[in-house]
């Protein structure tokens, strides 16, 4: 069932909680509402489920205005599952799920065999069949939430509204419940609108998203369109990185070391990192948090170290993607090394393309600089150059580089020398 929201506005105690909200949800899609705390997500769900009435604006459910439904008819079309609620302790699971049949029953009408069959089916779909004689009070949070979804399904709705259905649940239950909802979307044509706190869950499950910020739509559309580094950083006021999910390619949000927090008093000493291939992300964050001035080189564009350095605004030397380091970049790298007090060679995978980063370390040693060589993984096979890399590493060690086995040791050593 298609849902249209037009110019929805809601005011609470003179404060506009929602302003001019408009969006469409196509039939049979999984639609997500995301946004920071206090952005109006739950209010929006309450307006859609008619617990609250809007100040102005219109919600259409199918071809009819939401307001034109009687309470009973609405319950036949729309079911709602909210965050874990404690209530109805003494009822059995089956009794609770049977309450989902209420809109279909007359005042003095007893439940028919058909109602029992529908309840049984809802219990089966949600994996609650073995729980049916248990009391609600005896269930775990995850089980209780599954029962709530079973009750919603017993209403045989066309639309399912969810308000953070997996809050307080562990990652296993989160997946179980959202997988179930997604399956119903795909197989039964159920239209789902869900508030989701977790952006990655939203991206993983939803066909469409609205991003709310202070009661207004900050972005709407497909997850690719909404979950961009720019949108999320702006609305949540935090440093994040959006990268494709390793298997599905859907946008995945990762936290980044914060850029805005006032850093501890800046130390004057500068460290140059020779990095690449995802070897130095953590190093960059930790050293920056510790207050050192950092520079990085040479990184290929698109490399995760490159992303990290860029998001931290570090001075860096970058090379075109998948290309060998050119003499020009090497020279820039050496210039940064000359400004640094200390050089750290991260545990980078070595290929023909980045041998020059090792040579840069040798140059630094030759110029009399301290070079730390981080080797956390003794048996790590990271030389892809038929021995040339190994030879250079051996040369670096002979040249006086200090070999260090853990990051913690490195930080201590740096703290002592700088």
């Amino acid at each position, binding site marked *: 069932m298609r849902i249209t929201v037009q110019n929805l506005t809601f005011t609470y105690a003179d404060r506009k909680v929602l302003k001019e909200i408009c969006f469409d949800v196509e039939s049979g899609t999984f639609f997500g509402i995301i946004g920071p705390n206090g952005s109006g997500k739950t209010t929006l769900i309450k307006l859609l*489920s008619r*617990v609250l009435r809007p100040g102005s604006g219109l919600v259409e459910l199918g071809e009819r205005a939401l307001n034109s439904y009687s*309470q009973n008819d609405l*319950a036949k079309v729309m079911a*709602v599952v909210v965050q874990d609620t404690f209530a109805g*302790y003494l009822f059995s699971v089956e009794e609770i799920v049977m309450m989902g049949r209420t809109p279909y029953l007359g*005042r003095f009408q007893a439940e028919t065999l058909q109602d029992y069959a529908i309840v049984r089916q809802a219990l089966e779909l949600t994996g609650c069949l073995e729980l049916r004689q248990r009391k609600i009070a005896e269930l775990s949070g995850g089980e209780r939430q599954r029962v709530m979804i079973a009750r919603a399904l017993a209403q045989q709705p066309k639309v399912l509204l969810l308000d953070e259905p997996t809050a307080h649940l562990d990652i296993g239950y989160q997946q179980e419940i959202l997988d179930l909802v997604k399956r119903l979307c795909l197989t039964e044509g159920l239209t789902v609108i869900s508030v989701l706190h977790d952006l990655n869950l939203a991206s993983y499950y939803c066909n469409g998203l609205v991003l709310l910020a202070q009661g207004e739509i900050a972005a709407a559309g497909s997850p690719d369109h909404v979950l961009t580094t720019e949108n999320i950083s702006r609305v949540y006021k935090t440093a994040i990185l959006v990268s494709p999910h390793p298997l599905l390619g859907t946008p995945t949000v990762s936290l980044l070391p914060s850029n805005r927090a006032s850093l501890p008093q800046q130390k004057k000493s500068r460290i140059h990192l020779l990095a690449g291939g995802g070897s130095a992300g953590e190093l960059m964050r930790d050293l920056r948090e510790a207050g050192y001035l950092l520079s990085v080189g040479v990184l290929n564009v698109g490399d995760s170290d490159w992303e990290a350095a860029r998001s931290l605004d570090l001075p860096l030397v970058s090379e075109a993607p998948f290309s060998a380091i050119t003499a020009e970049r090497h020279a820039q790298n050496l210039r940064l090394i000359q400004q640094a007090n200390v050089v750290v060679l991260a545990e980078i995978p070595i290929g023909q393309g980045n041998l020059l980063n090792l040579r840069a370390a040798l140059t630094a040693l030759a110029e009399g600089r301290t070079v730390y060589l981080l080797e956390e993984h003794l048996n790590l096979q990271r030389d892809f150059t038929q021995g040339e890399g190994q030879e250079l590493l051996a040369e670096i060690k002979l040249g006086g580089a200090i070999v260090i086995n853990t990051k913690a040791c490195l930080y201590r050593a740096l703290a002592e020398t700088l």
Partner: protein
Amino acid sequence: MKRSQKTWLFAALFVTLLLTVILATAVGAVAIPADVTLRIILSQLGMPWIETGDIGRNTEAIVWSLRLPRVLLGVLIGASLALAGSTFQGLLRNPLADPFTIGVSSGAATGATIAIFLSQLNGLHFPHMIPLFAFTGALLAFFFVYNLSKIGGQIPVVTLLLSGVVVSSFLSAVISLLMVFAGENIKGIFFWLSGGLMMRSWTEIGFVAPYLLLGFCLIFAYARELNILLLGEEAALHLGVRVDFTKKLLLVTASLVTAAAVSVSGMIGFVGLIIPHAVRMVSGPDHRVLLPASALVGGIFLVWADVVARTVMAPREIPVGIITAFIGAPFFIYLLRKKKKEIRL
């Protein structure tokens, strides 16, 4: 509860109720054999073939005009209080709620006290003055509390409970003040406040029965809604319940039932609080079973409490409210300890 269990439960309760009515009518200062009692009742109910020739007129009068109305009134009052109690507990989702929670009883008590006070003051007196004043007082108190707690057309549970408590305390102070000035009638007021069924006749039954029967029917009709309201008001909305309407209807109905009952019986405590909890332990939370079962058990309980009240120190009578508290409280503690369970709705 399974269907067969329900059938057995209600069969047992009905049989117990019938036996209670007959036995309680038989017991008294003049002991009348149960079979004689039964024969008198049946013949009065229009079964002329029942042989009553051997029974004296006096005995017949004791059974039919004195004891039976008192017993039946006990059944009605007990059932009303227990039914109203379980309705309030479910509606307010509060295990401490009882028919008196939201000030209805204090209103009735104030009304009755004023009536007693006035009749002493200037001889102002007319028939059924006390029940009429009590009933009016109860309704006035209820509507005051109801409107006091109304916020934007809705009645939040917490506001309702608080308004009830505040109005009750205020009215208690009014009663205390009147008692200070009541002089000799203080005993009358005290007896009314403790609750009792003495000197009640068919007239009182006629007075309260219509309200009670109407109330019973309405409340039973909304048993399923009460179940769903236990899940919370938003959840009930999502399941198609017209929450505001249902809440208001049930509040008014349960208060009316309480007001009618209290106006003829005085303040009989404990029945409305304890019977629903005790029944719930057996019947489970489903109001379709809980409501009628509570009503039956409440009726049976109050009749036996009244039997104790009028026999234990005969010929003196003890206010039945004292007996219900004396039996009810220890029994409830026993249930709590035996079940070792939290009291939940």
